[in-house]
């Protein structure tokens, strides 16, 4: 039986209420704490909870991936596990040296070269200097830093810094690796190389706790996934089971503004996502029309406003209905105003998260009448197989793949000529493939 190397018990983190941290009294209190005149034991008991009583055990050679919506506490939990953040309550036990890739600047002296920093880390992790130098060669080879390896770290870009930090984390003496997937944003090519290294690291007996938004490869990387929701462990288990629950088809609406509490020019009085029949939608399948119904309460009359409704996937907006494009604008709006926008024939990939955003601008196109905000989110239903993607890896890869499905054709030597079309999609509520060719809506010009 492998020995546990990372244990978290009852870990809780509360950030102090920011409004309580203003004023001279707070400044004096901070000063006294900083210079040791006041106790540090008065941890915040009120404020925003980001981690709530998390229990977690990882053994040698084991990997677990944290997943959850943005702001659910993944990075905070990693920071606590790595010793970079103090928990408000709870206990963290680590057996062996620990290394983290959460902020690549951590543990690097900016004026030293990458090589010197790696040697320094190696020495601090208990490696003899000869061994630390030898590891440097391996790291230089893996990270492909070339001449940059001997340049001061302060000259590195964020991506290069992340490469160095990963090399220092993976190839030195640490047994527990805390890995936030920052490479996904700053160096996606190198990230593939790092992910391919994971099985080797696990064979060496290292323990990996990783957070990523890339659910597509999760199942291939890790057999275990932990779903965090609002700082709590919602589910901890096999990646497939956790993903099935996490990506369960659903529709969620953002809370509307309570009456009288709007600070801007308008108040979001109601929002609905509707299905084809105009009933509140419970699930969308690829090709289903997405009808967004928004009810606004305006403080004053607005002439020729611009409405903007967009749908965004994990990588950003994918479709927008914008009056800046089509020029269709109501002559004026005032009081309680209801607007509906329908996205037709949008073949969204199954089991992916999407958000619906809304904004309202005045006639000048710049004055904000309602700030851009997420008004609803949904996870599409279906599966890769139901879309006609039958490869064994399709179910996993479609999760982190492009958010929109489009017709395509392969032509290769040897007479290979195959095509995938949206007609292959077979979902219960999707009649897209049976629908008549789409005829554009004639947008009336109102001015």
């Amino acid at each position, binding site marked *: 039986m492998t020995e546990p190397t990372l244990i978290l018990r009852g870990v809780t983190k509360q950030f102090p209420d920011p409004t309580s941290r203003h004023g001279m009294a707070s400044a004096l209190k901070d000063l006294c704490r900083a210079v040791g005149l006041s106790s540090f034991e008065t941890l915040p008991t009120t404020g925003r909870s980001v981690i709530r009583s998390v229990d977690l055990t990882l053994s040698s050679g084991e990997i677990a991936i944290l997943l959850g919506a943005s702001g659910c506490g993944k990075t905070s939990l990693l920071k606590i596990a790595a010793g970079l953040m103090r928990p408000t309550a709870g206990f963290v036990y680590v057996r062996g040296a620990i290394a983290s890739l959460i902020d690549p600047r951590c543990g690097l002296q900016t004026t*030293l070269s990458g090589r010197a920093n790696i040697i320094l880390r190696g020495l601090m992790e208990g490696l003899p200097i000869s061994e630390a130098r030898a590891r440097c060669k391996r790291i230089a080879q893996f990270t492909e830093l070339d001449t940059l390896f001997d340049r*001061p770290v302060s000259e590195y870009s964020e991506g290069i810094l992340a490469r160095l930090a990963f090399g220092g984390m993976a190839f030195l003496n640490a047994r527990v690796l805390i890995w936030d997937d920052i490479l996904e944003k700053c160096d996606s090519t190198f990230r593939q190389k790092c992910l391919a290294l994971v099985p080797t690291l696990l064979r060496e007996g290292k323990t990996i706790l990783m957070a990523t938004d890339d659910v597509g490869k999760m199942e291939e990387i890790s057999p275990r996934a932990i779903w965090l929701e609002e700082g709590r462990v919602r589910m901890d288990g096999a990646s497939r089971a956790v993903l099935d629950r996490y990506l369960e088809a659903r529709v969620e609406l953002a809370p509307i503004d309570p009456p009288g509490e709007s600070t801007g020019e308008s108040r979001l009085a109601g929002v609905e996502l509707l299905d084809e029949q105009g009933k509140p939608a419970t699930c969308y399948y690829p090709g289903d029309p997405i009808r967004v119904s928004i009810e606004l309460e305006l403080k004053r009359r607005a002439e020729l406003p611009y409405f903007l409704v967009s749908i965004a996937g994990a990588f950003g907006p994918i479709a927008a209905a914008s009056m800046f494009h089509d020029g269709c604008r109501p002559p004026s709006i005032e009081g309680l105003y209801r607007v509906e926008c329908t996205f037709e024939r949008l073949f969204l990939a199954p089991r992916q998260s999407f958000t619906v955003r809304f904004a309202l601008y005045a006639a000048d196109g710049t004055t904000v009448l309602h700030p851009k905000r997420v008004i609803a989110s949904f996870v599409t239903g279906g599966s890769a197989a139901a879309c006609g993607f039958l490869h064994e890896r399709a179910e996993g890869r479609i999760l982190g793949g492009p958010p929109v499905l489009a017709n395509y054709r392969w032509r290769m030597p040897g007479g290979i000529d195959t095509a995938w079309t949206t007609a292959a999609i077979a979902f219960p509520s999707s009649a897209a493939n049976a629908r008549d060719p789409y005829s554009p809506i004639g947008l009336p010009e109102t001015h």
Partner: protein
Amino acid sequence: MRESRGYGIPGHSCSVAKPGVSPLQEESFSAYGDATRYFHEAGRMTTDAPGPGAAGEQNWGVRSASEISWTGTLGALGLLAKGCFSGYILRAPLKAVFRDLLLPAGGVWFFTFLHTDATARGGWPMLAIAAAIWLLFSNSVRHGGMMLWHERWLVRDARVPAGLLLTAAALVPIALFGVHISLIQLALRTGSVRQDGSPIEIVLAGGIAAATGIGAGILAARFSPLRPNFASAVPKLLLVSLVLTPVFYRLASLNGLGQAWCMANPLCAATELARAGIFLAEDPPPHRAQIIASCVSAAILCWGLFTLRLPATAFTADHD
């Protein structure tokens, strides 16, 4: 090599099975036996925690539990010192020469040229040695203690102890002071003025200035994360300290008030002591003032070093 560590606060929900030890601790200890070497409770070492490394570790910034050899520690110290020198001198040598040699030398020459009784009584060596002492203090703050702020990302990683970085950083102001003193000695030897004071007094004065500077620098570094503008205000505060220190004037010119100030500001005693280290004719500050200055500087240094054992200041905010 087996090493391990734990950190955290046993949850409020844990019932205490025996005084001072929560069931969680017992579970951990029983599960890992003697491997449990570092255990923290509510930011402090619990007195009940067993393990050979227990008593020596009370810091939230969890230090590396690896057993680092002396050669490893010295190697790390060497690398950190190289980094500190690189950051200050090697990466911009011309700037360093201007800032630490030409500018002070020009200042000494200018005020000596003015040759007023208040600024240059006793000639340029009096001004130069006092300036060297103040520069040692200033460099100890900016490049000694404040290095904990400049290299906060390095220290944030638990593997590099703050004390090791501080030791390396302290070498920079001390080395610069050595250069300044050497240049003053060289100028004295080539000129007509002969030094007849005791170098021990200069070393003692340097010790007072360095200890005060490093201690104050650590405290400034501790406060900087809480008020980010504070770090940029430190050079201005140091200029204020230049006015409050008898570099361009003599303590004797302040009469009774000067004597009282000498008691409060250790740099006053240090500059006067260093002047006496150049010329015997110069009256050193009273012994009582020297003792008080030494005690105050030691207290400031100890206070700074004490704060290294407290949780990192960033933990109080935890917003970054």
